């Protein structure tokens, strides 16, 4: 199994937590994993991107046109980061409006739930329900239990399930 995923968003949206969740899921499934993350000043509300490569890779970075899946927490990043996705790759985009072309209003769903910060997990839950990720939903659930801070665990799990159950 080999899969390359980009996670794109803006600082503060939980891109790093999403990256960690997927990377730990790879290890849980016995796959080698490499990620690359954005740290530093960009984390103050600027554009950030993570690369996750599950399987036998050497470089932490994904080349344009090679990602199998893209998780976009900020629709405004599409112009910049969509070129990473290969032809036929799957795309999941947090954006308002009808759920077409991988769109899901994760921000609205998270806010309706009362916790705007879990839009990242709504998006991952949705991607998992479509079978777009190398790992099954149960692996992600198990990792989420392990890596969530105790006081956030319930909220995180529910965020994931909201996305997983989304019928767009």
């Amino acid at each position, binding site marked *: 199994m080999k899969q390359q995923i980009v996670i794109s968003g803006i600082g503060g949206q939980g891109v790093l937590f999403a990256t960690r969740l997927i990377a730990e899921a790879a290890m849980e499934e016995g796959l080698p994993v490499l990620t690359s993350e954005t740290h*530093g000043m960009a984390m103050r509300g600027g554009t950030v991107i993570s690369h996750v490569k599950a399987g036998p890779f050497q470089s*932490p970075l994904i*080349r344009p046109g090679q990602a199998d899946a893209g998780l976009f927490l900020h629709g405004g990043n599409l112009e910049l980061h969509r070129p990473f996705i290969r032809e036929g790759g799957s795309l999941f985009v947090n954006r308002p409006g009808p759920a077409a072309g991988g769109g899901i209003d994760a921000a609205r769903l998270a806010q309706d739930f009362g916790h705007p910060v879990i839009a990242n997990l709504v998006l991952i839950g949705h991607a998992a329900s479509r079978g777009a990720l190398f790992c099954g939903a149960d692996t992600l659930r198990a990792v989420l239990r392990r890596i969530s801070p105790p006081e956030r665990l319930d909220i995180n799990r529910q965020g994931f399930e909201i996305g997983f159950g989304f019928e767009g």
Partner: protein
Amino acid sequence: MNRSERILMGNEAIGRGLVENDCRIATSYPGTPASEILSSVADFAAETGASIHTEWSVNEKAAYEVALAASYTGKRAAVSMKQVGLNVAADPVTRSTYLGTKGGLVLIVADDPGPHSSQTEQDSRMFALFAKLPVLDPSSPREAKDMTGEAFRLSEKYELPVMLRPTTRVCHARQNVDCGDPERKEVRSRFERNIPRWVATPAFLPELHRRLNEKLDRIAEEEAFHPRLVSRGGDESRRAVAASGVVFAHAAEILEGGDFSGKTDLYQVRLPYPLNRKFIGDLRKRYKEVLVLEETDGVIEMQIGSDFVKGRSTGHVPRLGELTPEIVEKILREFLGVPGEAPSAGQGKGKRPSLCPGCGHRAAFFAIRETFPKGIFPSDIGCYTLGMNFGAVDTCHCMGACISQGAGFYHAFAQDGPGFPSIVVTIGDSTFFHAGIPPLINAVSQGARFIVVILDNGTTAMTGHQPTPALGIRSDGSRGAAVPIPELVRAAGVRFLRECDPYDVECMEGILKEADRYVRSAEGGVAVVIAKHPCIVGREARKGQPVYRMSVTEECIGCKACVEDFECGALVFDPDADRVRIDGTLCIGCAVCVHACPVGAITAEGEDR
């Protein structure tokens, strides 16, 4: 021995490597992309019960000197910093190669090709060459961890500090890495007086320099550091690629592609300086062309130095910027004559970073700019550099420079007559400790007249909230002695010192006007204002302040003054309504923005107001 596999960030892998290899003293000053190294040492020490002194030093020079002296006692020590931090530590580093070390000393310098978060993209391997310091160049988190042990052993064998030079893409990559128990050697500190060595007046230096050169010659012959032939394919073409650092990882992955099969040999250079002598000879014998891929300058290329080498000097490799995989693919296709195109990255601009909603710095900048619409605003390095987004930062150079720049502007303008402009310098609390104190003394003693605003948020925010000396908290969370900023300012000879909370914009504007009058008075000099509000990223800080319910009334005329001049992420212009609205998911209810609306359309409600 317990072994387990964990996913570690490159910086955590280095921290883990230091702990497993009996490092006893670890020092650092935070800076992206190096910041997580020291905190990982503290965390892994606590986890494994290893006894390690860890410290966030006041700056990189102090950090290096503390670690260096610890090495004199025979214990293993490590110091980590970002590449521009090495400029600050340059003085002790360059002399330490002459004098050498006792216990292993590893200097970890994180480079930032691109750059992503730095004021230069300098290549610290070039500095290593200049300082005569062996340097290891890891290509992955796993290798970075392994190299900490190799660096300690090399350092002890030759009594020489060794540099480990990861780059951003190693520091901030994550990988599954094997972790084991710490090795414990029970070394007791011991210091032997050795005046020719540890005092080393100029009379002793020629001999020390001769020995240093000898050590480097021997290291360049170390069989263990002969570059590795990783993949073959160049028998027919008589071409080879020699790569180091993460660029090696990019190249290795690209060369696995079917269309590159049988085209080239690939070598990994793990010790770029001093480059293995035999390797240079082997290349000459075996190949008609060798492409060198390395970041960010031609350190390996320069040492091979022959006309069969292709790289930066021949235009085969771009002379600046990060070598991303798509650029490496393009270079390899051209060099090896493999047809095809590497797809290019997206060309959009992305969203620029901005001060957090509710940040005290924004309030301080607003007060400064409102009070001095024609002022000159030198600033410095930290989150607050983002004041440039709304015209409150005119210069940013290197740590601490803003205070000397304030003085330089004053002396230049003062020559032209008494009506000099108001110069308002902004510097963060951690930056002030790092490099602000000598320039403040200098400005006072040279009679400069300007205002210094110390933006005191009680932490080193941008790099991940490391404590400053003012807090009296050490890197492992234990209590240290607090060093208060006001006492330092007074001791530097400053006669005008006021403190305020910048959330109270009117109060701060009053203090700034008073400061300007002092600066221009007969007895005037440097005025210091400490604008104190805790970083609101910390949960505790948020708990300690009132939360107002903010709204934008019908009075809003859609002029966007608040969006442009105040630039708070929670103030959003809605083009359909032609009005500004509050983004409730981002707003923390600080209410400072009521001052930013020229028609009073932003209102705050709450029990406290």
